[in-house]
């Protein structure tokens, strides 16, 4: 897979303080990469260096092959950035704000109008296109922020706390938007957030940064093993009807250490990722498999484990 975002020994110092320390990172095309860490860990500084808004003290970064320091215009023309609190001109309407973004991206008026209408529909603000932004709720502004990012037809999107301050009912829509960007439009997404339970649903790979250093990268399952979660993982299989035969068959699957029953859910402890085998057995010997999910690889736990170690 082609690396779309690359950072090589990326370092930023403010006097004696090292905000980002030798960050090495590669994010492949179409990935949704979660970039997590506590406040002050260096996430935003790293993002700003990737966008060419802050000059690194050492090292380099490239987005789509463009050097972030030497070719910031090329980088910014393919990268959309959604900061935690994206500002809009309150006296302008949602459409006018997007048209301004279009003009900053060199779009013709006609192209910008067409794109703005499409994007506003996409983020669910089609009917509010003419409304002044200062009369919009926080959630609507956040959706407009997504629209603003999509306006330039980006190949890469970097987001900082995209679900912050949004009511729980609107979050699934936001997450769908992000996964839609990645799956339907092939956009590479780098997302930074403290709301790990939401991020777990969408991230294909994550990186954890602490005190400016990237302490871990990988899939959630890989990190679970690396962070001392042991060799075992627990898979929860929700079945239509529990059958003793199924429980017995599951224990014979190579890699399975044990099976526990909780109502119509079977908790299977296994030493490796045997999800395909579990699904096959459940379908062959059960009445139907409703869902299967990993329970012990909760991102929050992994995250906390890294910081407990420190």
């Amino acid at each position, binding site marked *: 897979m082609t690396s779309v975002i690359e950072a090589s020994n990326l370092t930023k110092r403010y006097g004696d303080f090292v905000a980002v320390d030798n960050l090495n990172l590669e994010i492949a095309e179409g990935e949704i990469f979660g970039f997590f860490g506590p406040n002050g860990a260096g996430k935003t500084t790293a993002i700003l260096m990737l966008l060419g808004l802050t000059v690194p003290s050492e090292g380099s970064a490239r987005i789509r092959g463009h050097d972030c320091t030497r070719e910031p*215009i090329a980088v910014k023309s393919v990268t959309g950035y959604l*900061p935690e609190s994206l*500002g809009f001109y309150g006296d302008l309407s949602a459409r006018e704000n997007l048209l301004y973004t279009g003009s900053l991206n060199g779009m013709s008026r006609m192209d910008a109008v067409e794109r703005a209408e499409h994007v506003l529909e996409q983020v669910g603000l089609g009917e509010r296109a003419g409304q002044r932004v200062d009369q919009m709720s926080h959630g609507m502004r956040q959706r407009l922020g997504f629209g603003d990012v999509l306006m330039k037809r980006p190949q890469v999107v970097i987001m900082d706390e995209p679900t912050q301050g949004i009511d729980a009912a609107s979050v699934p829509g936001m997450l769908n938007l992000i996964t839609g960007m990645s799956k339907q439009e092939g956009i590479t997404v780098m997302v930074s957030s403290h709301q790990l339970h939401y991020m777990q649903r969408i991230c294909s790979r994550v990186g954890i940064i602490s005190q400016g250093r990237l302490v871990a990268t990988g899939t959630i399952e890989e990190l679970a093993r690396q962070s001392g979660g042991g060799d075992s993982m627990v898979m929860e299989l929700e079945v239509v009807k529990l059958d003793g035969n199924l429980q017995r068959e599951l224990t014979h699957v190579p890699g399975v250490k044990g099976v526990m029953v909780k109502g119509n859910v079977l908790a299977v402890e296994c030493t490796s990722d045997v999800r395909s085998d579990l699904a096959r057995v459940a379908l062959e010997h059960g009445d139907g498999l409703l869902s299967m999910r990993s329970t012990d690889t909760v991102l929050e736990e992994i995250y906390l484990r890294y910081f407990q170690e420190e």
Partner: protein
Amino acid sequence: MRAVYWKELADFFAARRFVVLLLLIALAGVWAAYNASQVILDEAGQAPTDFVFLRLFTTSRGDSAITFIFFLGIFGPLLGLSLGFNAINEERARGTLTRLLSQPIHRDALINGKFFAAITVLGITILCLVLVIIGVGLYTLGFAPGTDEMARIALFFVATLIYVSVWLALSILFSLAFDRAVVSAMAGLGLWLVLTFFLPFFSTSIAEIVVSEGESPEIVSADRVKWERRIDRLSPASLYRESTQTLLNPQIRTLGLITLEDLEGVLPNPVPLGQSVSLIWPHLTGMLAMLALIFATAYLRFMREEIRP
């Protein structure tokens, strides 16, 4: 830069504070020009005299010093300050600075776009005011200005634009130096008060300290006046006042100290335009240098600023 320029241009013309200030200056200017035209008519009847149009800008009724150039000299800086005091800090406070700079534009496109849009607005505004005064003159005096008068009015326009732009650049610099728009506005107003109203008082005191004794009381007085002028000319307000008075009053033939000996044998004829320009050339270049220096400082500061969302 074009996108920023057009957006800012539209914003400036729609800004309420700018429209209010402009109306105030326009009304006061028209009132001053109308009064001047009445004085001219009272003095000379309907007969045209030399450079009578220029007197519209410099004449006041009775002892009052309220002329059009006085209004522009005093309130022009407020126009400049009103267009720049929140140029950058408001973008920062609103969160739009990061949004703008994460678009594919050079960083200087933002500050340049804002600066040139404001200069365009100031240029259009001052031009309209000058045209209104000419209109008042045409209506009340009943004849058109001559070529030399038009050339002097055009140069007056240029000098005014440079002068107001100095204050604009200063307000942009303050909008970078202070996080809150209200603080940058207060800093701009404070400096305007000091340089326009208080500096003449300070210059007298400083001159008295610097020149305490001399060969004769006349020499001491002359030296003090020289020092006062040197200090006064640190202020763009003083440079503007002297240059516009020289341009609009062709009788002025020197900006230095005049002795009775200097006036011996001098014919009371107006000086040609070229001579007036050579008299104010240092003033114009001085104001341009101030403008360039202040804007360059603001530019460098903005380019080196750490951008945080």
